[in-house]
């Protein structure tokens, strides 16, 4: 087993006294797919937001790639190789698919704004390099036919795929997916699962995802973390989690 890429230790987060996350610790190994599951309001999205610095935890540390981080800012997280998608798609709706994917590469761009504006120096060559990489991601996720479509006009399932493309364009080391399959039909879920597995295998990306479809989670992930009311109630392989009595209680209820 490889060493953990991401380790959360004793993370707690509250919003004006309402506890969202209480003392959560777990580790995600390099190259694995880790699923966060739990009922609505269990704190899954909040946890993702803590990992990439949208929320600051009240207490606890994040150890990412061997560095202990107390607070993380979103752009700092991006620079360290953490990319993410959002539960309700956060694409740039007025821009084309290609432009959206290219924005994902913004941290790789060489050349100052002046060089870009005047189309001199490093800018012209760099644009071609970025375009090439963006096209590779577009090919990978098979969205070539919509390359020049305005994102706001595309159907929901495709937008989800474009958002994954934008995240992948950043060449992330850690990819956070917040309900990548929400609202999809069976075929779309199968496609998206395929893309997630391919991402892990081709790029070696470590993936943390939130998903409600237990069937998908069990098939897709190497590691499952179960949350309920902001607390961790299960952590292990899909098989272990499936047999954990606390998890069964949270999901199915117990007779008291």
């Amino acid at each position, binding site marked *: 087993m490889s060493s953990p890429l991401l380790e959360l230790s004793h993370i707690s987060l509250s919003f004006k006294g309402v506890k969202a996350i209480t003392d959560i610790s777990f580790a995600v190994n390099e190259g694995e797919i880790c699923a966060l599951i739990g009922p609505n309001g269990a704190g899954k999205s909040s946890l993702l937001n803590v990992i990439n610095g949208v929320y600051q935890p009240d207490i606890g540390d994040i150890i990412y790639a061997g560095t202990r981080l107390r607070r993380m800012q*979103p752009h700092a997280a991006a620079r360290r190789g953490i990319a993410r998608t959002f539960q309700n798609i956060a694409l740039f709706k007025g*821009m084309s698919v290609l432009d959206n994917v290219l924005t994902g590469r913004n941290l790789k761009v060489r050349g100052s704004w002046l060089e870009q504006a005047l189309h001199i120096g490093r800018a012209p060559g760099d644009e071609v390099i970025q375009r090439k990489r963006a096209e590779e991601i577009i090919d990978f996720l098979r969205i070539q036919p919509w390359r020049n479509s305005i994102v706001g006009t595309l159907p929901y399932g495709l937008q989800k795929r474009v958002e994954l493309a934008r995240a992948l364009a950043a060449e992330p080391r850690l990819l956070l997916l917040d309900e990548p399959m929400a609202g999809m039909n069976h075929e779309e879920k199968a496609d998206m699962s395929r893309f997630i597995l391919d991402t892990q295998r081709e790029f070696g990306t470590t993936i943390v995802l939130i998903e409600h479809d237990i069937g998908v989670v069990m098939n897709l992930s190497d590691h499952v973390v179960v949350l309920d009311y902001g607390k961790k109630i299960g952590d292990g392989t899909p098989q272990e989690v499936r047999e954990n009595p606390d998890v069964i209680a949270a999901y199915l209820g117990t007779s008291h």
Partner: protein
Amino acid sequence: MLYRESGQFISDYRADRRLFRLWQERAGFYLLLVFAFAVVPFIANDYWFSAILVPFLVLSLAGLGLNLLTGYAGQLSLGSAAFMAVGAFAAYNFHLRIEGLPFLLSFILGGVAAAGVGILFGLPSLRIKGFYLLVSTLAAQFFVQWVLTSVGWFSNNNASGVITAPPLLIWGRDFSSPAGRYLLTLAVVVALALLARNIVRSELGRHWMAVRDMDTAAAVIGIPILKTKLLAFAISSFFLGVAGALWAFTYLGTVEPHGFDLTRSFQILFIIIIGGMGSILGNFLGAAFIVLLPILLSNLSGTVLAGLIDPGQLENLQKIIFGGLIVFFLIKEPFGLARLWQNFRERSRIWPLRY
């Protein structure tokens, strides 16, 4: 049939990123340039140059400046005329106080001064958005006008704060004739419009649009929001500043701070609303609408209604019709004239078929 890409194979990314991708676009653009530079100077008369073409071009450039800020970067502003005023007065002072400064350089320095002021008044955009930002840019509008009126130094201590254009000498040639002023304006506007077209398709342009469409997501993927917004204000103000200098030097000849009042800011805002947000071409269409339509209306009503209504009423009537037409256009095409052109282009791709 008329406008289609079939048969034009693009085999590398560099070719795909040209400013005008199809030969139809390139041919159209070059023809337009040849017409504007080589044909118009011979067929237009002085009235056309001074009263129609030059203000049309300058207002197009001003619209372009505001469109970069509002249409592309999503930051509302009502301070456009203030940045124009800074550009005009700065260019005047640079030219006046630095001996032997090339004329075009004073325009550029005027733009740079406007960019500086733009950054200053763009700072609130880091904390406030939308209509609140719009109101804070009003501060620029009133503050700049007040400073230029009350500090005599800016107008070289002219009693009424008026600045007068120096002779338009570039490389020993005099551009002071109406045709010369037209050509000078045209050259500057074409160069800056091409620059703008390049900016909006570059990485910087994508940052602007990302901030416009969803700034939280832009921050998460690593786009520096602060720098992006301030650059939008700076570059937009640079364009507006150069437009202001042109307004003072090649259009009016003499100008006072009140020439750049709130009405002018509104005029520029209307240009981009009518022309189309997030479009380069739209600014030219919008400016043409704003400049030409009133002239057309006054000529029409002058001939059709002459003698029927008294001239004072006629002028009010024109304003009413003008306003009505704006409302009509926006209901018919809320995305502006640029969208009409886009629709036409889409249609002509498949013409004579319907779909």
